């Protein structure tokens, strides 16, 4: 395990912040002089109190707005002043999971996942093949035809993870994925995200669930008042999730 973790740490950079500052139009400071590198296959927690800049950090990666200063690279490409027309294609390579799930209430579980393929121009055959596969991965094969309001919060978040992962993006960004869920359900969601990480996907999770962060002992980037105040890798990664994961042999190999 330690050997493979070392290899992952030496992987090519997926996200690079280079002295990035973001000032909003109304003058609010979102992020100031942030520099960090997230490498391929890493699992990174982004922590800090509300209003510390976590959302700014995430929205910069999603290219919802331009950085005011500095440079931001995704997969080696400078996206600081990216052509507007190119942004959708960047987002197709980034899976996103949010606290409020962002599911479409008038569509079934299957259609919600299929929708993200549909609007990116996937063929019918591709949709028919990928959607059930992704839903099987998150353990919702039996609820394909349910509507989101018929599911529990944890199940809804699984649908949104299935949607984010259906294209097997190299980068998965989760903004408070367990913010609306009880501790037990949260653990299940974190396990799922961890399993996705094990397939080689780089994962960034913003959370203020301190207990979860302490328990998982992954790399932590802490933000406070728009600054990165801590960026540390645990000396030894916990085996806890790996142990749990071993009892679920349905890890996706893709």
């Amino acid at each position, binding site marked *: 395990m330690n050997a493979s973790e070392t290899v992952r740490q030496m992987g090519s950079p997926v996200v690079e912040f280079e002295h990035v500052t973001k000032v909003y139009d109304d003058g609010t400071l979102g992020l100031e002089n942030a520099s960090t590198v997230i490498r391929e296959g890493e699992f990174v927690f982004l922590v800090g109190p509300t209003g510390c800049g976590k959302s700014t950090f995430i929205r910069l990666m999603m290219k919802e707005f331009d950085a005011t200063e500095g440079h931001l690279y995704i997969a080696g490409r400078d996206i600081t002043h990216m052509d507007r027309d190119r942004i959708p294609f960047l987002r197709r390579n980034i899976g996103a999971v949010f606290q409020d799930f*962002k599911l*479409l209430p008038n569509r079934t579980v299957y259609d919600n996942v299929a929708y993200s393929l549909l609007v990116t121009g996937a063929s019918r055959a591709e949709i028919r093949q990928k959607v059930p596969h992704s839903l099987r991965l998150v353990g919702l094969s039996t609820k394909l035809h349910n509507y989101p309001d018929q599911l529990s919060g944890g199940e809804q978040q699984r649908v949104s993870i299935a949607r984010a992962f259906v294209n097997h993006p190299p980068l998965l960004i989760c903004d408070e994925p367990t913010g609306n869920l009880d501790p037990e359900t949260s653990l299940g969601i974190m396990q799922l995200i961890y399993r996705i990480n094990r397939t080689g996907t780089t994962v960034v999770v913003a959370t203020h669930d301190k207990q979860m962060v302490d328990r998982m002992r992954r790399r932590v980037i802490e933000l406070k008042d728009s600054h990165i105040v801590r960026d540390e890798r645990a000396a030894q990664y916990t085996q806890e999730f790996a142990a749990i994961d071993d009892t679920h042999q349905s890890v996706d190999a893709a």
Partner: protein
Amino acid sequence: MNFRFFFSEALRTLRRNSAPSIAAFLTVMVTTLVLGVFIPITNIATGAANDVRSRLMVEVFISDAATKAEVAALKGKLEANQYVKSVNYVSKAEAQESLSGTLKDASELLGKNPLPASYQVTPKDPDQVDAIVQSLQSSAKTSSGKPSYVSPAIDDVQNREDQTNKILTITGGVKFAMWGLAILLVLTSALLVGNTIRLSIYARRREVEVMRMVGATSWFIRWPFVIEGVFVGAAGGLFAVLMLLIFKQTVIDPVSDKFALFAAPDTINFWGLTLILMVSAVLISALGSGMTLRRFLRV
């Protein structure tokens, strides 16, 4: 391009978002109707005014006392005038012939022909009537205050310009009012279509958010809204054209024989009008959707 997806999305919002769509549909319909009524009316009015203008001429009445040489010299002078297109001689007998009914009887009672011979001078351009009249007048005035003329053969010069000017002023006013009204209506329709699209953007904000998140291109997101707007416009235009067709066949066609105006050759062809109306209805709504999408759908 996934047109089935775009159409089903557009129809879906039309169904769910029907109240503003109906308002926009009705406004587009009224606008198209008004355009459909006013375009032929201004056409007729302009046609009539042009007809009057084209018949505009200067009548140069020849003094009975004029010698043949003077008359011939006058003709040469008129034909040499740069503004004149043609000169037509009307003899005293022809002038009498042209009188009709009671007037003719009256002139016969007189026992002699009181009408002078004249040259009917057609200008190259109706606007040059004044120039022709002026070129025939000499600067000196006679003692009675009447203008004197360049040739002794001229008794009087008349043109019907005053009447024409009145007609032109009225048709100009009608045209101006029509265009003002049309522009106002077009703006209102465009704004209402825009408002409909704005509401449907609001109703579909979650879909739009998800589409952006998973990387749909901006035109993929816009298409359903554009289709929705154009659909509203085309439906409004179509209904207006149908109403005009019914009106034409039940009211205009039966009486068109009795009113020469309706049958005037330069009245616009109905199918041409239909084409113009449908294109403008669709353009109006496309304009409305476009403006709204630019403002409210930042993708």
